[in-house]
């Protein structure tokens, strides 16, 4: 078993021992996923409800919310992230230990949601890599639990054989945007709810009627 290629025999297929080891390691990892809550908006309320007694996230291994990123396994970004908060989110992600996963909870964290404006990050996947996106505005606790179980399914398929490749981190990339310019452009294409954004600013001529005397005194 070489260090650079652990668990791989000469033919390139995993050996019996490592598949059994993978099973045990993945079993341990997926049943002790401690979330790092990054709640910024109403999605955080649903996240709190998920952790409370009615839905009881601890049943599935998310035993407690880890308010220290160094003890957390999965980052749950619940809510909208403005650009001013982007370096904070990136720093928390960089502070988390490998192996780590990320959940983008709700429409705002996943795509900017209705906040297609000057101050809002259009999807946190431009800043940190995201494993699971949960739709909803906000998602119900069942949605968050289902998303966490999807992370568990993802862990089930991981192998120590490609661990180094999966979990490779560039220390120089800390604090740099994860997505390149083209990717950001694709993410923030001519969609959204404000395609007529320049109408109010007067930069684009429209046939909209605007009369000052229609305004109430």
């Amino acid at each position, binding site marked *: 078993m070489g260090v650079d290629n652990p668990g791989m025999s000469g033919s390139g297929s995993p050996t019996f021992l490592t598949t059994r080891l993978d099973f045990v390691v993945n079993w341990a990892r997926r049943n002790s996923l401690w979330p790092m809550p990054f709640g910024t908006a109403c999605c955080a309320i649903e996240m709190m409800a998920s952790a409370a007694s009615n839905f009881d996230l601890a049943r599935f291994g998310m035993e407690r919310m880890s308010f220290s990123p160094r003890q957390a396994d999965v980052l749950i970004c619940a809510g909208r992230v403005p650009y001013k908060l982007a370096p904070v989110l990136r720093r928390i992600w960089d502070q988390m230990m490998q192996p780590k996963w990320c959940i983008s909870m709700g429409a705002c964290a996943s795509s900017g949601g209705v906040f297609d404006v000057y101050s809002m990050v259009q999807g946190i996947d431009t800043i940190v890599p995201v494993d699971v996106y949960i739709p909803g505005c906000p998602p119900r606790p069942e949605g968050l639990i289902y998303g966490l179980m999807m992370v568990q399914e993802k862990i089930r398929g991981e192998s120590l054989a490609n661990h180094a490749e999966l979990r490779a981190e560039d220390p120089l990339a800390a604090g740099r945007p994860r997505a390149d310019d083209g990717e950001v452009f694709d993410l923030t294409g001519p969609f959204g709810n404000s395609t007529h954004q320049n109408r109010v*600013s007067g930069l684009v001529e429209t046939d909209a009627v605007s009369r000052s*005397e229609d305004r109430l005194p």
Partner: protein
Amino acid sequence: MSPPTSQGSPFDLVAAGTGRARESSATVEAPAAVPPGNPSVTALRERFPDGVLRNAVNAGDEDVVYIDSAHVVELLRWLHDAPDQQYDHLADVTAVDYGGGKPLEVVYQLWSIPHRRALRVKCELPLDGLEIESVTGIWAGANWLEREVFDLFGVDFAGHPDLRRILMPDNYAEGHPLRKDFPLRGRFSRAEQTRRALTQDPEDYYVPGEIGERVPQVIGADAEGDEGGDDVD
């Protein structure tokens, strides 16, 4: 569009630009039609005939005074100090940009705790001269409120002790977002906005007095000597 019939909906009148909406706005426009309910308005007009431009009543009982921007500190100082006024609570300082080249309004929401009276003072500034005197000398709480107006509207408050951005990042270079001529998504591309956002250090938002320096709390210690356990080295 089909021509409005005699049994058309009221929206046809609005679309045609005529009708009751225009007539009613013409009747309310006269400022003297509604007498001010707040005695401060008449007192202010008598005391500062030059400083007060006009007054109005909004929403039935909200008194608004439009004042000259050159006299803002003088008038607001008097409203704060005069025994019959005592507007000791500055609830808000904000601004309104109506767009279309109209002057930008700086709005002071005042509340008198002793007299239980509210007064709204507005100050019109031309778009090419967004400068006004700071009122931080009257209400210390105006500090952050004026920083916010400066950040989002670009109004320059002369005499402000610490006029810098408060909501937008320090390195924000796209302008003042709440102005009507500001595009909704900002001026830079999303990629450039993301890159600029990640280059900032959140600890730069604070001045050294706000973090770092911690004064140890000394309980029950007299002034001289006795620097035993309270000294933090």
